């Protein structure tokens, strides 16, 4: 059985044709009239429901479907199948909050209605119109659902359609977000020990500065957000900034400390100030700020205005909007049609290029810190979008601590959550229509994309897996966690405070996304770990027993990094000249770094390349065309046509798990035989053997996602092949053997 239009035949758009009427179904089945709904979460309420609804299965080309009930609650859109689910289907990776047929309301991206075979996007204004025969839901985690509404009663169909459209698409207020109903009713015992540093206390910041041997000052003046509502409760600035300057421009232009390099120079970020006035107040303020950042560390300072060299927040939004369309596939025909021009389509969205540019910029900053040992100040309008992307990336490349799971989570807390990235507006959780001031944009996703590039290029350097990143990118749209719900630390604190004091409610218990047990059981969480993570210190001991170097973070570029820092007089000169420039040129001009970046970084790159790769040292991304790749797991996991049955990366992971089991069994034997190895000397292979079902070898490449789906065992045969290769030249029609003529017998 070939797929649609196999063998090159023209295939029409598949459309569902039912050969049975709803009455027939009713009489055939007549399910016991009982309320069908999913296992509701604490605080979850059903708004409306309808049945029978036909959900088309994407898994095969026949456009068949299953009947069930469609519901809309204050948390999700849910489809409950009439068929009793097979218990045997191995659910390796079950999300405890929502199943494969559930869509958290925040996760709904677009809703389309099919009216007379035509697909129309549903917006708030169209709600008055009649309901469509088919409703297509595109999700932010790239799932696509198709529900046929024609089998249910007209009244029910209209209700469910309007209900879903209303709750998913209409603007709402923050108070109505499900997290607040959930947090009240949720029993607190679920809270588990949190090892992630949250950066919501003075101690966390002090500890971080101590860890990186930073030498700055912790600001406590913003505890009541009197200084600024756009700054963290606590933050760190150069010591020499005066209290007077601290309050001068509501924290704008303040060099906020991010991280200190072992050489002593540091990374700062700042929001930009308005264009300087004639009186020179702002210039003098800026000069003092730059002086402060430079002098604290006895090095020169480089300024990098990200808004000049990187795409804008709007560019990023537009690019991603185009990009994601290529993964929201309605049917097989569309899939194969889009396969033909796949590479150029992806390229034309510009998304991969934006990823490359961000990584490139991070490399430039890394070079300044690592090779030139200069302080760096990255700037941007608000200082909470691309500044977060670049500073986080720089820290991951330089500091192996951030390549561990908890380290990475701490980094997200530090730079993004405490650092006041406007998650609420950027993710547009409240469906605000006023796009001008809100500017939704997938900045955090862009960061995860960049991290994924690093992970796929240097996987042994990371303790977490790509599955972890994919799940994290999904969790942004699950309205249960406090992590991604607010625009700033101020908003978080004030909202949670106000909601907690609500007379009818108890205290709020809003989990952070890092409390992974809310979503996954322990076994599933094991898939977050990279079995190939090289835990260097321990392995070194076993293999070579070399004395451990004193510093955990190691120098990766001996030739340049050991270079003595420039003498005091030198950087002073540089700061002086900088000051001169300040006076002459407009802010936007002098902030651009004068030298061409590409040529400069090449030398740095090649020096790094020549050294043997140290997974615990400096890590640089490869940026050439073939090296920047598509995050296949995230983008392709729901598309049935691309699933490799019995293959994909999971096959290797499986094999690794097997080997690890072998190693551990041997170790057990050794222990039993009383081989007395000192505890410390034993190999501590970090990961436990993965909880993969080793008996079911034929996992699909989408693993661990979509695992309950039964992928077809038949191969998928591409259609619409030839129209792409429009070879009009002579060659195509030429004979293979030009020199010989076929002998006619």
């Amino acid at each position, binding site marked *: 059985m070939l797929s649609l239009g196999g063998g090159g035949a023209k295939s029409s758009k598949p459309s569902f044709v039912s050969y049975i009427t709803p009455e027939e179904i009713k009489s055939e089945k007549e399910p016991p009239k009982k309320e069908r709904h999913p296992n509701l979460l604490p605080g979850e309420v059903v708004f409306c429901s309808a049945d029978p609804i036909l959900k088309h299965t994407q898994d095969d080309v026949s456009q068949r479907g299953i009947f069930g009930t469609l519901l809309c609650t204050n948390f999700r859109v849910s489809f409950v199948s009439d068929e009793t689910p097979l218990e045997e289907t191995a659910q390796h990776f079950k999300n405890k909050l929502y199943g494969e047929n559930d869509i958290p309301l925040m996760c709904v991206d677009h809703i389309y209605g099919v009216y007379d075979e035509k697909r129309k996007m549903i917006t708030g204004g169209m709600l008055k119109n009649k309901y469509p025969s088919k409703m297509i839901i595109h999700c932010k985690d790239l799932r696509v659902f198709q529900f046929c509404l024609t089998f249910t009663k007209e009244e029910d169909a209209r209700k469910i359609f309007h209900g879903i459209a209303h709750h998913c698409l209409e603007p709402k207020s923050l108070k109505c977000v499900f997290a607040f109903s959930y947090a009240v009713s949720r029993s607190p015992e679920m809270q588990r020990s949190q090892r992630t540093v949250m950066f919501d206390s003075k101690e966390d910041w002090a500890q971080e500065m101590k860890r990186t041997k930073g030498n700055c000052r912790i600001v406590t003046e913003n505890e009541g957000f009197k200084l600024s509502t756009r700054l963290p409760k606590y933050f760190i600035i150069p010591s020499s900034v005066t209290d007077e300057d601290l309050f001068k421009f509501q924290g704008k232009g303040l060099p906020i400390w991010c991280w200190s390099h072992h050489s002593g120079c540091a990374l700062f970020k700042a929001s930009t100030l308005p264009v300087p006035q004639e009186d020179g107040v702002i210039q003098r303020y800026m000069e003092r700020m730059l002086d402060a950042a430079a002098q604290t560390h006895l090095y020169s300072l480089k300024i990098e205005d990200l808004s000049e060299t990187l795409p804008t927040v709007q560019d990023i939004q537009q690019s991603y909007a185009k990009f994601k369309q290529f993964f929201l596939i309605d049917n097989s025909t569309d*899939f194969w049609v889009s*396969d033909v021009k796949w590479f150029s389509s992806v390229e034309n969205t510009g998304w991969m290029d934006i990823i490359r540019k961000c990584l490139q910029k991070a490399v430039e900053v890394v070079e300044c810190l690592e090779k030139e040992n200069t302080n760096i100040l990255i700037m941007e309008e608000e200082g909470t979008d691309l500044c977060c992307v670049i500073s986080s990336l720089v820290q991951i490349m330089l500091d192996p601590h951030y390549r561990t799971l908890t380290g990475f989570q701490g980094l997200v807390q530090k730079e993004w959550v405490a650092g006041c990235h406007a998650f609420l507006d950027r993710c547009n959780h409240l469906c605000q229509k006023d796009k001008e001031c809100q500017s939704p944009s997938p900045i955090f996703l862009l960061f995860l994309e960049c991290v994924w590039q690093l992970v796929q290029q240097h996987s042994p350097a990371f303790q977490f897996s790509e599955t972890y990143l994919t799940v994290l990118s999904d969790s942004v749209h699950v309205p249960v966690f406090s992590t991604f719900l607010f625009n700033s630390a101020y908003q978080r604190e004030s909202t949670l405070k106000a909601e907690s004091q609500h007379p009818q409610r108890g205290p709020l218990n809003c989990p952070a996304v890092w409390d992974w047990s809310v979503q996954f059981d322990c076994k599933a969480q094991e898939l977050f770990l990279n079995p190939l993570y090289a835990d260097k210190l321990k392995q070194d001991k076993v293999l070579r027993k070399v004395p451990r170097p004193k510093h955990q973070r190691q120098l990766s570029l001996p030739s340049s990094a050991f270079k003595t820092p420039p003498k005091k007089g030198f950087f002073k000169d540089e700061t002086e000249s900088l000051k001169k420039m300040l006076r002459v040129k407009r802010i936007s001009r002098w902030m651009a770094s004068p030298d061409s970046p590409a040529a400069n970084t090449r030398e740095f790159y090649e020096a790094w*390349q020549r050294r043997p790769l140290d997974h615990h040292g400096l890590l640089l991304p490869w940026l050439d065309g*073939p090296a920047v790749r598509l995050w296949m797991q995230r983008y392709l996991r729901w598309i049935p046509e691309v699933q490799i049955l019995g293959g994909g990366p999971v096959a290797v992971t499986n*094999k690794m798990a097997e080997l*690890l089991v072998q190693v551990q069994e041997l170790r057990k034997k050794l222990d039993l035989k009383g081989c007395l190895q000192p505890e410390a000397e034993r190999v501590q292979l970090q990961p436990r053997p993965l909880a993969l079902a080793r008996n079911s070898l034929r996992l699909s490449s989408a693993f661990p996602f979509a695992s309950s789906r039964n992928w077809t065992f038949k191969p998928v045969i*591409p259609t619409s092949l030839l129209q792409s290769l429009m070879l009009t030249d002579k*060659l195509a029609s030429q004979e293979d053997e030009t020199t010989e003529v076929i002998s006619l017998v």
Partner: protein
Amino acid sequence: MELLADVALLPGEERIIDKDLIYMCPFNGALKGKVFITNYRLYFRSTDTESTVTLDVPLGNISRIEKMGGASSRGENSYGLDITCKDMRNLRFALKQEGHSRRDLFGEIFKYAFPLSHGQPLFAFLSQEKFEENGWNVYKPMDEYRRQGLPNERWRISFINSNYELCDTYPTILVVPFKATEEDLRRVATFRSRCRIPVLSWIHRDNQAVIMRCSQPLVGMSGKRNKDDERYLDIIREANGTTKLTIYDARPNVNAVANKATGGGYEGDDAYQNAELVFLDIHNIHVMRESLKKLKDIVYPNVEESHWLSSLESTHWLEHIKLVLSGAIQVADKVSSGNSVVVHCSDGWDRTAQLTSLSMLMLDSYFRTFRGFQVLLEKEWIGFGHKFASRIGHGDKNHADQDRSPIFLQFIDCVWQMTKQFPTAFEFNEHFLITVLDHLYSCRFGTFLYNCESVRENYNVRAKTVSLWSLINSSTSIYMNPFYTAESSHVLYPVASMRHLELWVNYYIRWNPRIRHQILSQNCEILSQNCEILSHNCEKLSHNYETLGHNCGILSCI
């Protein structure tokens, strides 16, 4: 003292000439150094102390050598040689302009790179290499057919071609339907291009469906029919009770039609009533050659940066890969669902070899093993007469020969794509595939020389040259895939979508040090570390057992 005297030469290799010159390295700039030429290779080493750059290029890799600039050319390093290689690179050397310094070097390279154009033997015939294993024993047709369960009551071994009388480009041992007589075969041969009649390549153990390969029928403009050919195909269909035999014509429909003009064509509906014909739309050798040329343009010496994906798309290389793979998937799918198939293109030695061998790779896990893959190449490519000599142009100076085409490379690329999608299913690794491709050109081994078995026999290749498999099977560990998991029962269907196809960077862009090359090698490192720990533990364990046994012995004595 000779220049570069420390470089080890192969037994039978002789140094011809050496020279001081400048290698115009596209990645490191102009490098002063020394070069020597042997009857097998060109070897260069830079004399700059900082980082040594070496080149070790078998002369067989060279497709073209040209002189750059003249005695009066101006500009630095404008006088020299430009060498185009078959393995995706160009080498440029600059020499001193005085005294025709390049003349002898050019002459010797020209002579030894293209020995056949100078009446000289290929290096494979001069090599004195010895290996533990004789690679010529890897493939024994009878053993392979027996492994497949042949002959049986429906299929017989025919020796009709033992003197290459039926078909000079086929091997001597053929498997044909039991019901077809030798006379039938002769009559069918008259109706098939170059007498390449449908013969069995592979049989499904359980459902007895077969893959047959052949060349196009000689239908011609007048639409000729041949009762014997029609009956022969029907016998094939009957053999396992298939109701309809599927004929896969690898070509695009239009090309198949056009072939009628030169006497060829395809099986018409009315003549072959119990057969269905499917065109697989794979283009001819010329299209593939041009596509690879375009690919080289975007990856050598510099990788197109800004529009990498769209330039890659414009070469169509991966799109051709997609078509070949998708054809093979259809063949494999048909066979695994119990239907016999016949595969052909025009002559049945290019696209046909790709399709049969790839579908066999999908269907039969034996061919995914280290030895099995060697058997597959020996059988479907070397045995059934893929015209390696014409397609590669071993030792031949006609670089623009229209017969040259990267068909075999394209096949290996398809295999690589499969290994990427099924990283545990193949016993061999990427390095193995690259080694095979390197020696496809090197002329160090006899394995890929000449167009077909009969010619190889004339030149006594098996006796006078060494097989590539001798080298490979004498040091297998470096070619093994550490993730290999033997699994026999499943058919592997790769996904022939551009979403999954990727450029084989480690092969096509391997000369560029600025491009990332690794992925698996990194993992292998970790793995081998783990294995080290494992074996270390094992040692301790066995040592402990010994101590234990020893102690027990002592105890019992007491």
